[in-house]
């Protein structure tokens, strides 16, 4: 009895410790997350405009609403490039043990365990995605038939996008870009410079061609010195917030966009 109790107790202690360890590991990884959530989500409010667009489109095709299910999966596919793995080269420099001429087993052993321990650490940070506002999912146009049957030609659909839907799309894009649009404080004269930037996107929402300045407004002799910087601030915003999550079926509409950046709030 006692023996079995003890083993049982021991097992449960070990089990609990194990559980605790696993849980605390989770905690560690979770701790990194808070940084990401910047208080920029305000933009979500704007999406009120979008919902108005959705019903407009729904009239087009009365298909079943299974579409929304499909959309999310598509959304998962193009996550931010998991390029992170690269920084690992850093821990590599561990050829230290080799030079030791003496085959002293003591010295040789310890170095090895440490590097492996160090490795797991670096991979963690890279996992963090870019700071960006939570955006509407690609399924914001619920009700739209998302079936991508190749049979239907693309042209008719593009033509079918109503102005209202275009507005909704523009609002969606703006909501994803705006949180990244930061400008240097001060320069009151600089804030009147309007930058027009052309951006061409790939189907997965990433940038196809580097943003291109296509025009400026509001430039005067006083703010001329800041023109380059204001254009760069706009360009940077587009680069920072890419890739964009946009409805794939409207790709023809958003593959080529002209942005108008107005640094100063209209008053």
């Amino acid at each position: 009895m006692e023996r079995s109790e003890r083993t049982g107790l021991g097992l449960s202690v070990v089990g609990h410790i194990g559980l605790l360890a696993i849980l605390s590991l989770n905690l560690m990884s979770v701790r990194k997350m808070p940084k990401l959530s910047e208080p920029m989500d305000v933009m979500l409010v704007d999406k009120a405009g979008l919902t108005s667009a959705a019903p407009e489109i729904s009239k087009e095709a009365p298909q079943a609403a299974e579409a929304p299910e499909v959309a999310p999966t598509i959304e998962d596919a193009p996550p931010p490039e998991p390029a992170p793995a690269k920084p690992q080269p850093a821990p590599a420099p561990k050829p230290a043990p080799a030079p030791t001429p003496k085959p002293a087993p003591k010295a040789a052993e310890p170095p090895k365990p440490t590097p492996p321990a160090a490795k797991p650490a670096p991979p963690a940070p890279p996992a963090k995605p870019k700071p960006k506002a939570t955006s509407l999912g690609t399924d914001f146009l619920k009700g739209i038939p998302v079936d991508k049957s190749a049979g239907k030609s693309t042209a008719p659909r593009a033509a079918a996008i109503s102005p209202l839907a275009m507005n909704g799309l523009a609002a969606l894009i703006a909501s994803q870009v705006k949180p990244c649009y930061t400008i240097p404080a001060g320069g009151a004269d600089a804030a009147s410079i309007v930058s027009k930037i052309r951006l061409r996107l790939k189907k997965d929402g990433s940038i196809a061609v580097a943003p291109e300045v296509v025009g400026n407004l509001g430039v005067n002799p006083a703010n001329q010195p800041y023109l380059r910087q204001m254009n760069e601030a706009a360009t940077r915003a587009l680069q920072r917030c890419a890739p964009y999550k946009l409805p794939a079926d409207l790709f023809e509409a958003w593959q080529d966009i002209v942005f108008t950046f107005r640094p100063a709030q209209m008053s």
Partner: protein
Amino acid sequence: MRLRPFRIFPKSASPSPSGERLGRGLSNCTCARGDTPPPAPPMEERGVSRAGAILAFFMAALGLSAPAAAQLEVDITGGIAQPMPIAIPGMPTPSVANTPAGDTASLGQRVAEVVTNDLKNSGLFNPLPKSALETVSHPQVTAPDYIFWTQSGAQALVQGFVQANGDGSLTVGCYLYDVLAKSELARQGFVVQPSQWRRAAHKCADTVYTRLTGEGPYFDSRVVYVSETGPKTNRTKRLAIMDQDGANHRFLTNGQTIVLTPRFAPNQQTITYMSYTNNRARVYVYDIGSGTQRLVVDQPNMTFAPRFSPDGRSIVFSMAIGGNTDIYRVAASGGAPQRLTTSPGIDTGASYSPDGSRIVFESDRSGTQQLYVMNADGSNQSRISFGSGRYGSAAWSPRGDLIAFTRIGGGFNVGIMGVDGSGEKILTNGWQDEGPSWSPNGRVIMFFRTGQGSGKADLWSVDLTGVNERPVPTPLDGSDPAWGPLLP
């Protein structure tokens, strides 16, 4: 892969051999500067856009692009004013060498720290903490690890190196990269004596600041001010000079006589100020090189509030004769003063516009102390301040567009207005803030703040937004700061 010093100069630099260029910097014992990069976009960018054009052509050819009418236009209104995240890792050295200022490896760390502090203090940048930085190897200086820096959250990256030259000088290379566009924005190399390594760091910070903000440089500059110590009733006041960030502090006078309102000459080799010598307040000129001082106007009258003209050839000051104070001008070398104002009452605190054509000053001719502007010869005097309270200690911005002042009304506050008095804006709200002096680029103002009751004064700086206000470190109390021009 070893970097040749000349590589740090942009390709557009004059074709003169690099050795000559570096040598020139050396002989001056100052920083050699490369030309600023051309305004045209870098080659890579152009290449990209051309590729883009070709791509667009193909897309059009394939009939993929939407009909012309379907061009999607998106408006983004309201930029967020936010400091830019920037990474400034320690600067590596190609080979560690000892110099009088320490070995080149540790100098590389310290240069990066000075650059970091400069950019941070400007209020326009948010340098990443050291823990978020990666160690940069020498070859990486010209080939940044963009993958790492993109993930770090930095939008700009400053890298560089410190290298000891055979002749005892140092070369500090400074590179600025756009992390998002993965392109180089600027590069510049500075050759300095080891004792002047901080200047190379300030020049590097200036390169980064000007390229990213469009503003002029100001970090490589000095400040002269009145250092104060002792009890309220018997303060010892000494002239002191220091770098803009408080480093390299030294006293110029011994404090046996009281000195007030020091002002730099444009050449930075002389300072004019008022001193009580033999119980008489008069304007002097002090030569920093020789440490000698000389009386400017040899008259028994009280003279004060001096300032150099932008060309350094003359000094404007106030002289009190029989209860009437007027503004005069005299050649910096001395001679007979020329009277510029004639109104009864007190006209004082003259400050030239940067082109030397006009002067702002204060006068109580209307009954209260207000600001006036006149031509440099004294003609065409007109009042520009009309707000509530009194106005004094005006300083014309080196950029020419603004006038800083002290407004007295309820308290002492530092503010700015247009040269015609429009757009008045109060920048500070301390108990007693006064004596504004402009940074060389006209973007920052240094002033002194006196605490309530204590009578102790400290130097502070504030930028034109009024948001970025911070103390300027001095070993003792400080007042009457005068920010000098950018060092050559």
